[in-house]
């Protein structure tokens, strides 16, 4: 299993990398944990790989001073998973990162790489959607809701590089839940659901539900979110989530099975989020 021949450029600045991407058969190489297997299988044959991992200043996790987070695109999954700041301010992100493949993959894979690869069954694209991420590139800032075009495809231009992800602060009294089902630990999700519930007094001020692995992009389930006006609305929201997705069959699970999973996982994620929001669970 050997990749096809390619030129290799280790860029040391974004300008160099962007210039090299003018070649329309060029590919950005970051952690390479999805790209290199595809090359090993010869599913891709780029003319040149532009290695951006030696560009300084793109590997950081910082608070924005307002309860939000700024994450450099070259931050490794493992760094995010183990960041004390993430564990405190965005525990749903730490919990989801634990489902990303395995230690050796998380040591090497990057946040920006996972987002740009845009696998609909991967955790990070779904989390970007759940946390209202803004994605800063060499050309513009894109809302996560606009970023994913279809399976393995984003709206990025050929010579555009993702540089930073910002997560706005969650509202006060926000609880979270993340539930994933995969056949084996570390496999891609058959389905996963991330949810947040924010309470204001006895009222739900905001509920967010994202489903992963049941559509050609991660999906925000707004119809289900709207049904969550009280704790007793969880069952109805879970049913709506199940009805709103139209997953496809593959050898790992039928469409019906995946739809069923989405309902169950939504109920569990919302229940956990609710308990955390009202302070009855850690």
């Amino acid at each position: 299993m050997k990749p096809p021949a390619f030129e290799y450029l280790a860029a040391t600045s974004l300008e160099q990398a962007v210039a090299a991407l003018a070649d329309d058969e060029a590919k950005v190489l970051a952690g390479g944990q999805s790209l290199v297997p595809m090359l090993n299988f010869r599913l891709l044959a780029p003319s040149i790989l532009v290695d951006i991992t030696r560009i300084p200043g793109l590997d950081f996790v910082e608070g924005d001073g307002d309860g939000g987070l700024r994450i450099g695109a070259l931050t490794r999954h493992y760094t995010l998973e183990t960041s004390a700041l993430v564990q405190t301010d965005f525990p749903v992100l730490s919990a989801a990162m634990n489902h990303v493949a395995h230690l050796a993959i998380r040591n090497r894979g990057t946040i920006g790489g996972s987002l740009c690869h845009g696998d609909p069954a991967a955790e990070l694209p779904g989390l970007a959607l759940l946390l209202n991420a803004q994605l800063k590139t060499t050309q513009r800032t894109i809302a996560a809701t606009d970023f994913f075009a279809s399976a393995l495809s984003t709206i990025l231009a050929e010579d555009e590089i993702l540089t930073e992800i910002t997560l706005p602060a969650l509202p006060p009294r926000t609880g979270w839940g993340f539930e994933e089902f995969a056949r084996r630990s570390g496999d891609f999700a058959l389905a996963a659901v991330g949810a947040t519930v924010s309470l204001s007094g006895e009222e739900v001020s905001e509920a967010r539900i994202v489903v992963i692995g049941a559509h050609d992009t991660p999906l925000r389930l707004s119809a289900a979110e709207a049904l969550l006006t009280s704790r007793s609305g969880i069952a109805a929201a879970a049913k709506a989530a199940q009805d709103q997705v139209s997953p496809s069959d593959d050898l790992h699970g039928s469409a019906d099975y995946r739809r069923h999973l989405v309902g169950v996982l939504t109920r569990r994620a919302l229940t956990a989020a609710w308990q955390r929001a009202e302070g009855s669970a850690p």
Partner: protein
Amino acid sequence: MRYLEAGKRHSVTFSLNGRAVEGEAEPRLLLSDFLRQTLGASGTHVGCEHGSCGACTVRIDGKAVRSCLLYAVQVEGRAVTTVEGLAGADGLNPLQAAMRKHHGLQCGFCTPGILMSLSQLYDEEPEADEARIRDVLSGHICRCTGYHGIVQAALDVFGRN
């Protein structure tokens, strides 16, 4: 900026188990093949070659990574540790010795990769419990042991402190 032409061999220099090494590699040569075939360091095993089985795991700058998902040219100037770098002058390191004692291997194909992941875990979380050890082992496929002996070996070492 370092530009390397396709289809030609280029000099690659890095540290392997504390020793400076040099060899020539095309950009597309995987680190796993460079280690085994160019440098003759065949302790690192090659299984699936697409990042699923964990057999080729090595450590780069201390972090366990799949050497089949890296090109040799990418590790220029880095510090690579392989299973050959684990034993000290006085013999097997504690993890290796525990693997032998607890029958943590039969055919031994997966063992080098498992040792590299467990050695990162031991350096960073020497108090890791069985659940955490099993989580890390989930990145490795072993078809002989059923994992029980491997877990026992790890628990023997991780529980000593």
